[in-house]
């Protein structure tokens, strides 16, 4: 059977018929030709003669296409407007749907592009909205300010925002005038919650009486902790439960008056906190808020004298400023007050001052502003992504509009009113936007779910939830709609002024694209390329940075390590029994096959904060009286070999370092170097806050990372477990193989000792590092996604523009080939033309990357922001994509049959 369709299609080329009319005409006429051909064969003609006859009868089809264009121009065939705008709108929408169906590629790309732009923006805006713009669901957050201690000399220490003791806080609370209300709290502490199945880990925040009052929030159920609850130590065995914990633990049943047992202490639930309220942390919240007066009952060791001792700096303080008081004024008042309190209660803290800063400033990352920088970078990227998406859609619409110049001219010539055309174009835009928005919202929702999946699942109930924000959604949808309508209208508005004759001619000659439109398209393309380069190079850079981060030496060997967090006091062990437990478990676990060594230490890696806790004995007068910030660890024997922290000088702790022996300590190189010339600290003495006997330095060990991976060096001091008892410890186990290989046998040993012993946290060392890198990994993931999206959009844009431009120049190519131009020279011409905007874009992208990398430098781990490999990878992938996007249309150009296009 002959392919009459292509025969007819070829004859109808450049007829000016729109997609749907042309397809129908081709089908109808090809059928006719087919029938006629069969008839001739039946009449006894041979194939060749029959074909020739049919061809000659088909003839040239000007009259056919002219008549069809006239019929097409009189469409839509529905009845004329009856004045009801709803009927008109319905008719226009149907017409729009039809013309979209007939341009499936255009519709697919436009809808996908819009959806990606809307989806990505909705996701990122949602995150930034939750973390930065509306970080706390409390009353008038701008009035809140944090009060913290700061070192007069920071000495390059990483942590200068130091907590305040409860005793100092009580003085502040009674004497200050800057705040209408002031409160203190101790951030989330790991507690063990007794459940029907055994024990579960829970997080508790210990608060002063005016915590909730200062925040100005209202409970969902019941009441909050009040000042009168916390008058004396041990008063008010009550707790406020978080919204998520209430849903999780009580399945939403009335929890008021019910008891929860935390660390063996029963507490009555008096209220439920509002949904999404995580305390003063925008990211991580507790399950319970407990009066600070219950601290010593629930965490006896940690809270020992914590409410009365002026040297126990462990509480975060914040207040609500009086209406006419600024944070600066409050800062001066509080600083003076702090000096007065110090003088009254001894000279121990004279180097520390007190400062007040707006809470929002602190939540957004303080002076470093890491959160803000990260967010601004992300915002800039998704903003640009939306811009690129809109540019792509604009480009597609302009190209489509240009290709419809002929159709528009005919319709005007046939009497269609410009307002009617504008209305129909608007209806098409509306449909396009609706489809884009629907898909975009799905992508946005999926994006939020994806982000959620990055979060460590074991604490997901305590983490901020990224809910799709309607305001955010409306914003992105609004921007996209505006773009679609604006660029969708251009062809229609042009149509209103179109000169029918020149429009028809132009349609034939060049597809209706003016020089201005071409320049505009090229500029858009260059912009897209630039943006894609920035995105791609940044994504590679951050990815490489995360990769490097895994190779950062944290100062201990995280591989083949596993940790187990326990607090025997929580299930009623007295001190001798706790000591027995520590010794027994260490010995049993150490002798397990596959275990190299085991030891106990207070705290987890990367979960430590420095506190002002060390005083150097025998140094100059000024130094003598000041407390230095340092990380404190209580460790058992074998800790350094288990962690593989190198001993630089001196010795490690031994079993003999007990309460009867001389108090000793091991310090890290940082503290040694800072306080003793040449780091010669061995045999020197120092004092720990709250202790009355000095400790002798018996060893100096390497610096580790205590708070984050790759941090600036911090002071650290280790004291032996037998000299400083702690009720809650973490067991560290070094395996001969992978860290996870011994978990089961370690847990079995603990169960064998006491089946009721709650192990609140079990993780491998690698997982600890992994969790620490959660934010950079998330950033790398997001940037990777955006980078790929940008590349996809840029390649689609380039290909579309090139294919369109080649189509426009088909005649020119035909002439060139007829005059003897080779395929190579045609390809070279097309590539040259296509690469112009690409090269401009690459140049602009390089500049953009240089600027952006300066901002990024503080978020990177051990990699130069101008990393050649990242940049090279970005440039190379774009060049490849650009080459393919230009080469394919170029190849098509060489296949142009000169006789066809010139006819």
């Amino acid at each position, binding site marked *: 059977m002959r392919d009459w369709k292509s025969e007819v299609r070829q004859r109808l080329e450049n007829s000016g018929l729109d997609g749907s009319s042309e397809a*129908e*005409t081709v*089908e*109808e*006429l090809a*059928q*006719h*030709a087919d*029938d*006629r051909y069969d*008839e001739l064969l039946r009449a006894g003609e041979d194939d060749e003669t029959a074909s020739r006859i049919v061809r000659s*009868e*088909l*003839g*040239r*089809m000007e*009259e*056919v296409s*002219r*008549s*069809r264009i*006239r*019929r097409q121009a*009189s469409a839509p065939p529905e009845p004329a407007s009856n004045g009801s705008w709803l009927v008109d709108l319905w008719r226009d929408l149907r017409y729009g749907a039809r013309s979209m169906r007939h341009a499936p590629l255009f519709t697919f790309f436009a809808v996908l592009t819009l959806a990606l732009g809307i989806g990505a923006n909705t996701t990122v805006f949602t995150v930034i909205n939750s973390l930065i713009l509306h970080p706390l669901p409390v009353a008038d957050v701008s009035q809140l300010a944090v009060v913290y201690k700061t070192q007069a000399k920071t000495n390059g220490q990483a942590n200068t925002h130091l907590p305040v003791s409860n005793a100092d806080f009580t003085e502040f609370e009674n004497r200050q005038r800057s705040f209408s209300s002031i409160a203190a709290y101790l951030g989330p502490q790991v507690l063990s919650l007794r459940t029907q199945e055994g024990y579960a880990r829970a997080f508790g925040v210990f608060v002063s009486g005016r915590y909730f009052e200062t925040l100005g929030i209202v409970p969902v159920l019941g009441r909050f902790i009040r000042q009168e609850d916390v008058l004396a130590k041990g008063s008010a065995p009550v707790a406020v439960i978080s919204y998520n914990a209430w849903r999780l633990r009580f399945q939403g049943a009335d929890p008021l008056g019910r008891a929860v047992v935390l660390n063996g202490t029963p507490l009555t639930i008096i209220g439920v906190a509002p949904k999404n309220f995580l305390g003063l942390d925008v990211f991580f919240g507790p399950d319970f808020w407990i009066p600070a007066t219950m601290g010593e009952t629930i965490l006896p060791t940690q809270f020992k004298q914590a409410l009365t001792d002026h040297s126990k700096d462990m509480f975060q303080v914040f207040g609500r400023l009086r209406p006419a008081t600024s944070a600066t004024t409050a800062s001066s008042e509080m600083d003076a007050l702090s000096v007065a309190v110090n003088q009254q209660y001894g000279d121990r803290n004279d180097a520390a001052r007190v400062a007040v800063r707006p809470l929002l400033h602190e939540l957004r990352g303080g002076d470093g502003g890491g959160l803000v920088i990260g967010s601004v970078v992300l915002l800039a990227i998704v903003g640009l992504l939306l811009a690129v998406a809109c540019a792509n859609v604009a480009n597609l619409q302009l190209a489509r509009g240009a290709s419809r110049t002929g159709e528009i001219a005919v319709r005007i010539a046939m009497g269609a009113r410009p307002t009617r055309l504008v209305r129909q174009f608007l209806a098409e835009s509306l449909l396009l936007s609706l489809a884009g928005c629907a898909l975009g919202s799905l992508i946005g929702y999926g994006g939020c779910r994806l982000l959620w999946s990055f979060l460590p699942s074991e604490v997901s109930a305590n983490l901020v939830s990224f809910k799709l924000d309607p305001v955010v959604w409306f914003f992105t949808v609004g921007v996209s709609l505006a773009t679609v309508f604006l660029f969708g209208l251009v062809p229609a508005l042009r149509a209103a002024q179109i000169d029918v004759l020149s429009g028809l001619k132009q349609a034939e000659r060049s597809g209706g694209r003016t020089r201005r439109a071409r320049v505009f398209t090229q500029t858009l393309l260059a912009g897209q390329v630039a943006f894609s380069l920035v995105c791609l190079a940044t994504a590679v850079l951050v990815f490489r940075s995360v990769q490097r981060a895994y190779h950062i030496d944290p100062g201990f060997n995280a591989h083949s390590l596993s940790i187990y967090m326990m607090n025997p006091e929580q299930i009623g062990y007295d001190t001798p029994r706790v000591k027995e437990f520590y010794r027994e478990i260490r010995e049993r676990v150490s002798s397990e096959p596959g275990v190299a060594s085991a030891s106990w230490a207070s705290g987890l890696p990367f979960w430590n904060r420095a506190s002002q806790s060390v005083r150097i004995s025998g140094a100059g007068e000024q130094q003598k009286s000041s407390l230095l910030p340092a990380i404190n660890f209580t460790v058992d024997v074998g800790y350094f070999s288990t962690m593989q922290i190198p001993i630089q000088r001196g010795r490690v702790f031994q079993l003999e370092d007990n309460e009867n022996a001389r108090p000793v300590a091991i310090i890290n190189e940082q503290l040694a170097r800072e306080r003793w010339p040449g780091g010669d600290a061995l045999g020197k003495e120092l004092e720990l806050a709250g202790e009355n006997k000095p400790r002798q330095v018996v060893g100096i060990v390497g610096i580790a990372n205590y708070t984050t991976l790759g941090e600036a060096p911090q002071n650290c001091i280790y004291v032996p477990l037998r000299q400083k008892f702690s009720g809650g410890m973490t067991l560290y186990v070094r395996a001969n193989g992978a860290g996870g290989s011994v978990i089961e046998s370690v847990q079995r040993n603990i169960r064998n000792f006491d089946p009721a012993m709650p192990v609140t946290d079990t993780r491998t060392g690698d997982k600890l590092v992994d969790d620490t890198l959660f934010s950079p990994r998330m950033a790398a993931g997001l940037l990777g996604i955006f980078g790929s999206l940008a590349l996809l959009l840029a390649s689609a844009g380039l290909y579309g523009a090139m294919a369109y431009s080649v189509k426009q120049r088909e005649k020119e190519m035909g002439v060139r080939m007829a005059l003897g131009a080779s395929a190579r020279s045609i390809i070279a011409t097309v590539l040259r033309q296509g690469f112009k905007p690409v090269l401009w874009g690459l140049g602009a992208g390089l500049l953009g990357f240089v600027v952006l990398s300066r901002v990024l430098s503080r978020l990177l781990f051990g990699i130069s922001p101008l990393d050649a490999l990242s940049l090279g990878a970005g440039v190379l992938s774009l060049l490849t994509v650009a080459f393919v996007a230009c080469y394919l249309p170029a190849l098509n150009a060489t296949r142009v049959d000169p006789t066809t296009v010139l006819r």
Partner: protein
Amino acid sequence: MSTADQEWKKGSAELLILSLLEARPRHGYDLAKLIESRSAGALSFHVTTIYPLLARLEERGLVTGRWEEKPEQRRRRYYSLTTKGRKTLAIQRTGWKEFVRAIAQVLESENA
């Protein structure tokens, strides 16, 4: 194509199509074949004649085209008469008959 053929078609093509569509909807090829067979080959309508004509009739609202699928047949575009088309056909038919009668009278009187 003979001169007579061309002349006849100019004046009468519309009438032919409309009258062939009076009984039932037909597709383009069917129409062309009918014209050719009923005129015993004296009139032949090809693609370039019949489809522009159908498009013009459709544009004027005299006929309407619709894609139809019938069992074991390809999808085809069938044309049918509209109400306006029927009225026009009636007028044209009367006019044609009067015209033929008038011509015949003239020719007969010449020969008489």
